[in-house]
């Protein structure tokens, strides 16, 4: 019997022609868990070093250590919580109002074609207005206090929510709705059991956008007229040339944005674990 037909005898490497050259490297995503942390450390280190060496004026660009010190001061004298509380309350009220209204209108536009025919041109007309431009009008209507800020944030959140909601409803697979109809499910059940959960991914993606809009608008509104709030705090620090305090406020805003994003990610993980 020839060797080539005997499966127990395999040719050894040295007798068998050329080795196949590996050429499948690269173009894959590798995880580098420490790279981001390292980059932060280097950036902060360079910044601190530049400051210490006198390359940057501590007034215009205070070193990270000064910013940290200012932040610690905000914690101990209670101004952090005082201002954060004011901003969070405005974001919460404005965002909930805009989201509730936007979802209601978005659902109507997603489900009823007349509502869509009326709504789309209106939304297209109002959506591009930078909502902060309406704050002076809202101040005239509602006064300088909280309601004008709620209205600005709510208005800014409303339109993107409308768009996200009705687009999300368009994304609900038609075949699932057909299936439900073929089993005789009533209209309300189809809405509750299929349209709502099917639209949830798109609606939650909209939350991400509207949360960042709310953060931008609350800062802007507080800079125009507020006693407390992170926006007012940052503006005040700027006016007093306290750049370390100013940057501490900015740092708080950055952490706030990060925290909101994390909460939304958790929400998505919980509610959309079926994907």
């Amino acid at each position, binding site marked *: 019997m020839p060797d080539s037909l005997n499966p127990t005898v395999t040719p050894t490497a040295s007798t068998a022609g050329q080795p196949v050259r590996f050429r499948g490297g690269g173009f894959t995503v590798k995880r580098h868990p420490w790279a981001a942390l390292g980059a932060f450390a280097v950036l902060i280190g360079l910044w601190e070093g530049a400051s210490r060496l006198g390359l940057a004026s501590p007034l215009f660009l205070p070193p990270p250590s000064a910013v940290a010190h200012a932040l610690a001061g905000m914690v101990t004298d209670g101004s952090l919580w005082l201002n954060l509380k004011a901003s969070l309350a405005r974001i919460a009220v404005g965002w909930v109002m805009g989201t509730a209204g936007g979802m209601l209108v978005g659902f109507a536009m997603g489900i009823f074609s007349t509502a869509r025919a009326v709504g789309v041109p209106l939304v297209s007309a109002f959506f591009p207005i930078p909502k902060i431009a309406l704050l002076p009008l809202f101040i005239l209507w509602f006064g300088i206090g909280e309601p004008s800020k709620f209205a600005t944030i709510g208005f800014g959140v409303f339109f993107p929510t409308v768009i996200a909601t009705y687009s999300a409803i368009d994304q609900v697979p038609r*075949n*699932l709705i*057909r*299936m*439900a*109809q*073929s*089993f*005789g*499910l*009533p209209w309300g*059940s189809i809405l509750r*059991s*299929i349209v709502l*959960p*099917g639209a949830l991914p798109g609606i939650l993606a909209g939350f991400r956008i509207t949360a960042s809009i709310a953060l931008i608008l609350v800062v802007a509104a507080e800079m125009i007229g507020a006693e407390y709030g992170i926006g007012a705090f940052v503006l005040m620090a700027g006016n007093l040339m306290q750049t370390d305090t100013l940057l501490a406020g900015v740092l708080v805003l950055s952490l706030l944005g990060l925290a909101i994003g994390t909460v939304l990610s958790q929400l998505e993980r919980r509610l959309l674990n*079926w*994907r």
Partner: protein
Amino acid sequence: MRLLVSDLTHRYDDLTVLDGIDLTLAEGEILAVIGPSGCGKSTLLGIAGGIVAPTSGSIRVEGEVPDGCLNPITFIFQDFALLPWRTVEDNIALVLEHHKLSAAERRERVDSGLRRMGLSEFRNALPKQLSGGMRQRVGIARALAVRPAMLLLDEPLSALDAQTRELLMDDFLELWRREKTTALYVTHNLDEALRLADRVCVLSRRPGRIRELVTIEVPRERRQEPSAQAHLAEVRGRLWHLMKAEAQMADREIARA
């Protein structure tokens, strides 16, 4: 339940999809419908199931429905149409939710569907965790839960690989051995038609017209036997001849358009 289709025509805007279909499905009969893609098979099923309104003609059903039937005309879909956010058992329970049933009966309908399709241990799984074959078994269990009088199957095995298809054909044979549910079975696949159907309806390319109705003379249970093979081969030859001609002409027309 019997299905009576007479002079059925359907147009989507200017596109005529079905043209003058006359068809009768006897009680307990399984009719396979084959034809080139785009000839209106899914549309025909949609009309039969009351989810597409025909342009003209009539479609009627008559006869008894089984005890406990909740949805006489019931679909089984090519893409399974499962809710991805619901577990296997909740997908089945979905189609019972709007019916007045005792909690015990609800459970029993879900459980018996799961048991018959061999899904009991996957009752809490999400669709994404199941293979294609298992997903279609959920689709079948869901259909059985409403005790249908007539099944409309739209290429139920087309999304599955060859082995899975064989296994599910056995499941269908078992189903039709136990319940004589009338069925309209749309397929691309001659094997499925020859294994499962009593008669095969060949549709022409679009607009779909009935080219031929072929009766398979050997009963379903005996089609694996050697004595049946000559007849099956002859039927297969005839069906293939008709299908091939229609498919080739359909291809040429698409190329020209």
